């Protein structure tokens, strides 16, 4: 399906969504990296 309404979650939103703190810095880094990759994939799909 075509995804139209994706928006990358910010670090603060990720912390809230997954109940994390700054102590979880590597997990947050990883979740941010996932958001970035997902955003790129969806953008590429949108260009097709």
């Amino acid at each position, binding site marked *: *399906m075509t*995804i*139209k*309404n*994706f928006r990358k979650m910010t670090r603060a939103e990720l912390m809230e969504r*997954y109940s994390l703190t700054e*102590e*979880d*810095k*590597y*997990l947050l*880094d*990883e*979740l941010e*990296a*996932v*958001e970035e*990759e*997902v955003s790129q*994939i*969806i953008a590429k799909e949108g260009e097709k």
Partner: protein
Amino acid sequence: MDLKEYRTGLYHALWTRQIPDRVPVAQGVDIVYALQYGGYSLLRDQYSAEKCYEAVDNITALIDSDVAPVGFSANGVPAIISGSKINVMGKDGFWQHPNYAPMKDTEYPEFINNFAEFNNLVDMRLNSAYENAKDEEELAITKLRVQVATQRHFKKTASIAARINEKYQFATHERSLGTTLSPFDNLSNRYRSFTGALNDLRRRPEEVLAAVRLICDNNLRRLDTMPEPQEGQRIFMPLHLATFMKESDFKKFWWPFFKEFVDKAASQNRRLFIFCEDKWDRYMDYLEEVPEDAHIMFEYTDPRLAKERLGKNHVLSGFFSVDILKNATKEKCADEVKKLLDIVAPGGGYIFKSDKGPLILGDAKLENIQTAIATVKEYGKY
């Protein structure tokens, strides 16, 4: 000959039914053990590729195995994103696997009548973020996040493995062709839970048989899509429930479907790495029917019996109790290694590893792991 060549040669000898220079060693620990040993925070650092690499490098320098000694049991980020109910992180950062059944015992008709659709439903039930998605688009985005997180995890572990293999010159003899469960074990693991699947055998045997048939057919189709195998590449099959069943049930619900899968794998020249969990002494007649050249690892099975019945046609490993690595003195540990090698090493066809990999630091004393390996390398020479 360099070290990598020597180590690879040990395994090549096993797979080609020759006697190697000595018994190969595949003793390892989990990444959790490595992080704890290095004093890292499991809760925080398991997500850092660099911290994991440091921990793996640190412990690898101390464990002189012939293959990379650190395995990765946990794949945390996808489970966090999907809200998995079967991979749940404890407060200490260790991943737990609750005995959860996403399928009710009354749902066999739905399972049997539309296997694909029912699998989608099970996926939803297994993951709270899928269940709670407010629409199809949010569900698709969550699944994409999980897919990306899974790929990132495999890239991370593959990159660590490549650096470690290069640095320590390990044999890369046993590359995975994927993991497959025996169909009845799959019914238990994914759908009905350990206790649920065993209860269903008695209460609704015909439905169980039909469901296991569908799972088996699906596994057989997946075999056709696997890449061409190379030497040492194996399909890993951990065998869970067989030893908890009466032989009559095993013979009807478990064995025929497992046998169908392993026979087809053999017909495609795909080799197997089978882990016979628990004690398989009473099932030796069946194991003798496994196509030749499997690698069969054992937990509590009698090593003498397994060597006698299976040693000519398969490579064996395991048997060495992880409790010895945990509790014994160094001297006792060395003695126990020698006793085991006296039974399983003659004629080749044995790889040394403990019956379970130490997961956490409390599972095994490092000095005993080192003693066991040193003993194998000296006493296990042919």
